[in-house]
């Protein structure tokens, strides 16, 4: 009996696949009703389900499939023409079968529900008077009972006469085998044969081979017409793989097929138990760790032979890891298949015309990820049809084709999988989002007015935007977008939205390729190692003694290149005792006493800095699950094993922010950061300076006297008056061109003179082409704007924004005193250090002279 259960499990799994295929093919057939080969494929599919359910004695399943098959038979024979009503009927049948399968899987029985209505609908479709659609009227009325009998009649003799007859049509031995198998299963449809044929049925249901499509295609129409042996076609490769099984078929003495001949068909793929693959993946991970240990050992032992072996093992390990990872990869088309059906059904119910375009179906990603994005993607598709695409009339009015398009595009991009869901619908009205944001108190009106369209659009992922009442008002998305985002982020991905009113919306999901192995940064906090996923890591900055830490709404913040970055002390949030310099006194002072490293992280839309003690290394780690009680803490997503065999926890960076109380506080501050970003993007950094809320211990100065402090190499720091700083840009060196007497770059279509303070080779070797454009490295350029004139100043890095400086110690310098650069106007003291003030006027003059 146990064995029987196994067959049923196989049967269920296979039926499930068949149904997916059925759905897709039905939707495809609806688009092209005259595609006969597709129709035949559908017929075979339904017949397979019917045959198998008959064998297992699943009466409801069999009855449903029987009605479907009868209807399909008529279609195939040209007695009926495929139309939408028929498609709906058959899809309803597919759904009903799926429900029964679920019930079978869970409880082993077909369930209480009666599917008579579905069957009746199918029967009704047999009579063309019921099928109202267009050109079907000409099809003759046919008696359904006769039709059913006809099908039966075709089934029974196929065991002998048809077999002989059709051998002439068969082109290969493989197909011969398929016939034989088919006959086995054929017989099993008769109750009396069931017991006796159990053995042969075994092989039929052991369908572990995927190549079915190819072989299905080989069957010619004649065979199909004679029906019923198609049951076996799907299994013929499994036959070929296992001579033993084919011998069983031979033993039955029907249409003897030589085992050797069957074996000629080489299967190119086999089914493997997913659990086994997962184990293999685990072991590959182990191997990676062992390899890391070995490499470490070989470094200590100076034996060239060991080094040689270690290198070889290392290479092989990498290869194995790569291949094993690939075995778990599946094309994304696997989950897209169902979307055609979803779009069709939803479009029908909304009275819209929607076409689904799928691009990059072959893009592969880890199967665990596939499962994880199925729901979010489904949601996006539903949203697209429901809210994105307009009704046909509206579309015509807007000058668009009546049929809307939803496009899914998947591709690999720099080690990530990018999935775009685009619709050509109405788009999201940013103004309405803005209104909503204000009325929901997510933003104050001032901030909302200043926020860019893109910033506002991201608000659709906020939970506050997901109630039904807003969906209707914001002509667009809303329901559950926050859930979509949290799902995607759970698996290390991100989601963004772009939209243009009137022409559509694009949602972009970015995912890591695989979950099991990820690039990470090992850090130390206190005396413990932790791991941060690289995906969320933007950069690591070092905060020196001088950098002020300010307080905003009780959250410590750091000004990172003009943007406010909330800080979280890792040792404090995790309660690690031995971390240095984390006493409260320090922070109340608004400063850190010793140098600190800040990992700048972005999780959700939240950007924050995690203060750590040390950055250890960047490495690929193997993700290991952790116990539920550890996960429940909320600070860790998993763990990994380091090269020395020790365990390191992988931080759940969103959870850490939450533990630090950051998200709630941050909501209130969203406006502030938008302010800050806005300030940068709006070419006036001054807006964010001199925050009235900032609790700086030093006295503040008027905002227009704030300084941007930049390092220019050689330990020198220059200050640029903030009010002249328009933007901070990274410009590739190759884009900075040399011309007679100076440098310039094409900046937003205008010529921007460039003054190379940090990289003086620009200045001194301007005639030497080789020093210019030597690589794609980026130069840090401070774009200054004074009275409409612009100049770009190349610096080593932007160190700080100083809101305070001691003017009393200001010293004027005579012209030319500063090493001939003519750089500085005067010196000031900022937090104890001497800063050279940049004489901007002079820079403009020199730059324009150079340009002239």
């Amino acid at each position, binding site marked *: 009996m146990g064995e029987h259960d196994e067959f049923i499990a196989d049967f269920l799994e296979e039926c499930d696949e068949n149904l997916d295929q059925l759905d897709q093919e039905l939707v495809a057939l609806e688009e092209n009703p005259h595609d006969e080969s597709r129709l035949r494929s559908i017929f075979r599919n339904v017949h397979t389900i019917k045959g198998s359910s008959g064998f297992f004695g699943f009466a409801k399943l069999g009855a449903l499939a029987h009605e479907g098959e009868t209807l399909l038979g008529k279609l195939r024979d040209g007695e009926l023409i495929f139309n939408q009503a028929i498609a709906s009927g058959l899809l309803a049948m597919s759904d009903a079968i799926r429900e029964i399968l679920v019930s079978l899987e869970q409880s082993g029985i077909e369930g209480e529900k009666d599917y008579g209505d579905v069957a009746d609908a199918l029967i009704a479709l047999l009579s063309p008077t019921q099928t109202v659609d267009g050109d079907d009227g000409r099809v003759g009325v046919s008696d359904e009972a006769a039709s059913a009998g006809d099908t039966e009649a075709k089934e029974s003799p196929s065991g002998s006469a048809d077999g002989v007859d059709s051998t002439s049509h068969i082109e290969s031995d493989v197909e011969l085998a398929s016939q034989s198998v088919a006959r086995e299963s054929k017989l099993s449809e008769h109750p009396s044969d069931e017991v006796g044929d159990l053995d042969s049925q075994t092989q039929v249901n052991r369908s572990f081979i995927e190549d079915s499509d190819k072989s299905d295609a080989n069957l010619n129409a004649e065979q199909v017409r004679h029906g019923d042996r198609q049951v076996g076609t799907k299994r013929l490769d499994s036959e070929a793989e296992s001579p033993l099984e084919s011998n069983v078929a031979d033993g039955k003495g029907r249409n003897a097929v030589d085992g050797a001949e069957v074996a000629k068909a080489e299967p190119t793929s086999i089914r493997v138990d997913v659990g086994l693959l997962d184990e293999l993946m*685990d072991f590959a*991970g*182990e191997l990676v*760790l062992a390899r890391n240990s070995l490499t470490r050992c070989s470094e200590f032992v100076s034996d060239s032979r060991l080094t040689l072996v270690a290198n070889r093992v290392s290479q092989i390990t990498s290869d194995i890891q790569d291949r094993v990872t690939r075995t778990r990869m599946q094309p994304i088309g696997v989950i897209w298949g169902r979307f055609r059906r979803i779009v069709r059904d939803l479009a029908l119910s909304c009275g819209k015309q929607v076409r689904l375009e799928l691009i990059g179906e072959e893009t592969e990603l880890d199967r665990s990820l596939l499962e994880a994005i199925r729901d979010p993607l489904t949601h996006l598709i539903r949203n697209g049809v429901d809210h994105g695409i307009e009704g046909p009339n509206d579309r015509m009015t807007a000058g668009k084709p009546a049929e809307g398009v939803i496009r899914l595009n998947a591709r690999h991009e720099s080690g990530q999988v990018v999935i775009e869901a685009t619709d050509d619908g109405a788009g999201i009205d940013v103004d309405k989002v803005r209104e909503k944001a204000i009325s929901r108190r997510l933003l104050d009106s001032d901030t909302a007015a200043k926020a860019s369209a893109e910033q506002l659009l991201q608000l659709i992922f906020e939970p506050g935007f997901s109630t039904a009442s807003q969906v209707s008002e914001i002509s667009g998305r809303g329901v559950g977008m926050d859930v979509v985002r949290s799902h995607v982020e759970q698996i290390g991905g991100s989601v963004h939205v772009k939209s243009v009113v009137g022409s559509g919306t694009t949602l972009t999901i970015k995912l890591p390729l695989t979950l099991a192995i990820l690039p990470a940064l090992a850090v130390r906090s206190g005396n*413990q190692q932790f791991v941060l996923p690289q995906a969320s890591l933007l950069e690591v900055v070092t905060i020196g003694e001088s950098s002020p830490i300010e307080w905003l709404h009780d959250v410590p913040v750091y000004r990172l290149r003009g943007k406010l970055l909330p800080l979280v002390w890792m040792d*404090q*949030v*995790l*309660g*690690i*005792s031995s971390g240095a310099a984390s006493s409260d006194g320090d922070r109340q002072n608004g400063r850190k006493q010793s140098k600190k490293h800040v990992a700048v992280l972005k999780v959700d839309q939240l950007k924050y800095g995690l203060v750590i003690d040390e950055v250890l290394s960047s490495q690929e780690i193997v993700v*290991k*699950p*952790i*116990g*539920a*009680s*550890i996960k*429940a*803490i*909320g*600070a*860790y997503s998993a*763990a990994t*094993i380091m090269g020395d*065999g*020790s*365990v*390191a*926890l992988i931080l759940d960076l969103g959870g850490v922010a*939450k*533990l*630090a*109380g950051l998200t709630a506080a941050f909501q209130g501050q969203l406006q502030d950061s938008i302010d800050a970003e806005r300030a940068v993007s709006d070419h006036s950094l001054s807006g964010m300076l001199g925050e009235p809320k900032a609790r700086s211990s030093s006295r503040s100065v008027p905002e227009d006297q704030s300084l941007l402090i930049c390092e220019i190499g050689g330990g020198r720091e220059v200050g640029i008056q903030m009010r002249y700083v328009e933007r901070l840009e990274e410009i590739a060196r190759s884009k900075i061109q040399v011309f007679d007497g100076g440098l310039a770059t094409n900046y937003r279509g205008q010529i921007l003179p460039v003054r190379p303070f940090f990289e003086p080779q620009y200045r001194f070797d301007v005639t030497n082409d080789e020093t210019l454009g030597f690589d794609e490295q980026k130069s840090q350029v401070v774009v200054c704007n004074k009275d409409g004139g612009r100049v770009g100043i190349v610096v080593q890095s932007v160190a700080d924004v100083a809101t305070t400086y001691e003017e009393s110690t200001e010293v004027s310098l005579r012209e030319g005193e500063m090493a001939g650069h003519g750089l500085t106007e005067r010196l000031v003291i900022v937090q104890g250090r001497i800063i050279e003030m940049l004489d901007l006027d002079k820079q403009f003059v020199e730059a324009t002279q150079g340009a002239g």
Partner: protein
Amino acid sequence: MKNGIQEGEAAYCTFRVGDSMCGVPVSRVREIVSDLVITPVPRASDSVAGLINLRGQILTVIEMRDWLSLNSNPDDTDSRFHLITEVGSELVSLCVDEMGPVVSPKESEMELVPTHVDPQVAGRIDAVARMPDQLVLLLKVEQIKEMRTIPLNGPRLQAEKGPKKESLQSATFGV
């Protein structure tokens, strides 16, 4: 030590935690390992000693002294034993001081947990077995999953453990 485990009698793997002997059914014990590096987990419940790497699998380590509110024995060294057991679908390590023999107490040797034991701890003990030379606390290992974690609000402050509950040892061994 008796070797022959008789039919019908449950066998218990015993171990010492602090000054008390405890036991869990032999059938629940996967393996026993010693001297593994324990990685502490900040913010975890006090009963969680940390994580260990058991041949590539990461297991939560339960500090049995804390779980049972038992005093540590001053003679104990840092060398601990990990008794690997399955709780729910998860493998966990019970961190104990010393391994003892396998015992199979008769029905008549089983006692209920004395009522004056702290209820939380009492809920983790199935019964007390009176063995010839000692008492053995037979544990309800499945209670481990009931452990609480530190609530999410606010960073956890160090060294705020309340005074230890009355020692279980004095409670049970005073019989």
